[in-house]
């Protein structure tokens, strides 16, 4: 065992504190009384914390939080429903033209969201799908589906063939093999895909601000944006909304850190 010097830990804490300072600042401002917000030397600590920002945020933004939750969950369901069978086809059933399909998916991830947004807008205008939850779910899922397929394919390609063969010998068809063997084994991949599909849909700003700008179903990201436009004096309420909007990310990081790291490195690092 080599000695693990404490100064490195201390330095690490300093780096992390610097990195997370904006996050701390967001929380600090959210607790600052409205009267102190315009002071030229801001309070470094919430010495006189107030929850007026949170009360304002919750009273006005609760419906948006509900919309975002619905859109996020819908996006998870759609993404997994499309990506899991496709991964099975590519990795286990050796779909002909699979490499070309993989290539298309990589290319799909490079298309700027603003371009997709314009295409969707042009289509939704005609179909009257603007400002609908379904329209937003579909648009948001385009961020996650290519990622999901690539992640499933990589994982399922590593499932021992004997496992699949054993199911076949027992008389299971392709569908049963998929639902009874391959899907349960791929549980971690499903969690990673679901986690990112949810986070990306929850965080999306571009599709929300183009396809769901008005109407009753406004997601939380757009709620914050309109908040900034409407009342620039109440930054404590804006930051309080921002804190609330960050909660899913914080919870997922605590509960599912392993899957987060798996998703970030997927595709970029060869295991």
């Amino acid at each position, binding site marked *: 065992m080599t000695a693990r010097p404490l100064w490195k830990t201390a330095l*690490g804490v300093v780096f*992390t504190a610097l*990195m997370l300072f*904006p*996050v701390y*600042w*967001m929380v600090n401002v959210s607790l600052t009384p409205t009267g102190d917000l315009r002071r*030229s*030397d801001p309070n470094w600590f919430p010495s006189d914390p107030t929850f007026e920002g949170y009360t304002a945020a919750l009273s006005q933004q609760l419906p948006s939080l509900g919309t975002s939750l619905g859109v996020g969950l819908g996006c998870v369901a759609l993404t997994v429903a*499309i990506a899991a*069978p*496709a991964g*099975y*086809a590519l990795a286990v*059933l*050796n779909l*002909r033209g*699979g490499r*070309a*399909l993989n290539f*298309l998916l*990589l290319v*799909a991830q*490079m*298309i*700027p*969201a*603003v*371009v997709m*947004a*314009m*295409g*969707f807008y*042009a*289509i939704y205008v005609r179909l009257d799908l603007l400002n609908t939850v379904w329209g937003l779910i579909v648009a948001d899922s*385009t961020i996650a*589906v290519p990622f999901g*397929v690539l992640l499933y394919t990589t994982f399922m390609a590593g499932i021992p*063939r004997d496992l699949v*063969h054993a199911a*076949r010998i027992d008389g299971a068809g*392709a569908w049963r093999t998929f639902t009874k063997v391959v899907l349960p084994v791929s549980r971690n991949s499903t969690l990673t895909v679901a986690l990112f599909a949810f986070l990306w849909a*929850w*965080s999306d*700003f*571009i599709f929300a601000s183009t396809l769901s700008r008005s109407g009753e179903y406004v997601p939380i990201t757009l709620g*914050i*944006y309109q908040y*900034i436009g409407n009342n620039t004096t109440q*930054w404590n309420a804006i*930051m309080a909304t*921002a804190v609330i909007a960050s909660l899913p*990310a*914080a919870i997922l*990081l605590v509960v599912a850190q392993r899957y987060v*790291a798996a998703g*970030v*490195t997927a595709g*970029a*690092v060869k295991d």
Partner: protein
Amino acid sequence: MTTTSVEATGRASGGAAGVSPAAPGRNGRRGLPGTARHWTAIGFAAPLLAYLAVFYAYPLWRNIELSVHDYTVRAFVQGDPAFAGFEKYAEVFASDAFPAALVNTAVFTLVSIAFQYAIGLALAVFFHANFRLSGVLRALFLVPWLLPLIVSSSTWAWMLNSDNGIVNSVIEAFGGSQINWLTSPDTALTAVIIANIWLGVPFNLVILHAGLQQIPDELYEAASLDGATARQRFWRITFPLLRPVSAITLLLGFIYTLKVVDVIWIMTTGGPGDASLTLAVWSYREAFGTGQPDFSPAAAIGNLLIVIALVFGFVHLRMQRDWEKS
């Protein structure tokens, strides 16, 4: 449409591609006869193929169509735009905003990824040492990456606020003078780059850290026995062996940064004037940012972005293929 093109390209590249997946393929085919198996595979991939056709190919096609017509708001609803050919592209290239947006895009992307990579690599090497709490601290570094962009962008906007921002408050405490970060044409681009660097460091850190884990410890032990200093170990072992991971990280960073709209739009809306306007933000501004949506030039700029992204995408694929071979 998509299905046939997939099939065609699949067959064309089949000769070269057939080498690596051959082994599992032959084993896998034992269960079912070839054609039945083929159709089963297509059945499982069908939702994805339909999805790609309807929700990727069709929006992209609409986008190309937008760019070669003259879409006014009225024509948009009624669907009878005049054909314009490459007129809209010519307008974009001739526009005053074009050189500004091109330079801003280059500066924004290159400066952002250079700093993200350098800071990410330094932190990855630092955290690689596995000291007490290193795992927890490294996980905390992911926070900026996971936050919704609207959250981090508006926090940065408030921190950089001219009169009430914490950044100016600190600068003034040290005797500096107030900087109008977001409202002065001289600093707006710098301000959004700073925020964007902060956003990108976690991604670089995680990937480069994972890359470091793959370098065998014995190499470092051997180098230590030979009396190599920490600096020598970094430049002679870490850096060269990390090259493939670095290349992928930089390239993905480039492609992601090229697309960035949210951060800039929320902080400065590309302004003041065109001071922090990038191609992606410009496209967004033309289509959705003003009261007067102008979809045709916006689509033209968007298609230009796709072309740039594709060029680098092909470089990425080449690199990955070379890497898999090695």
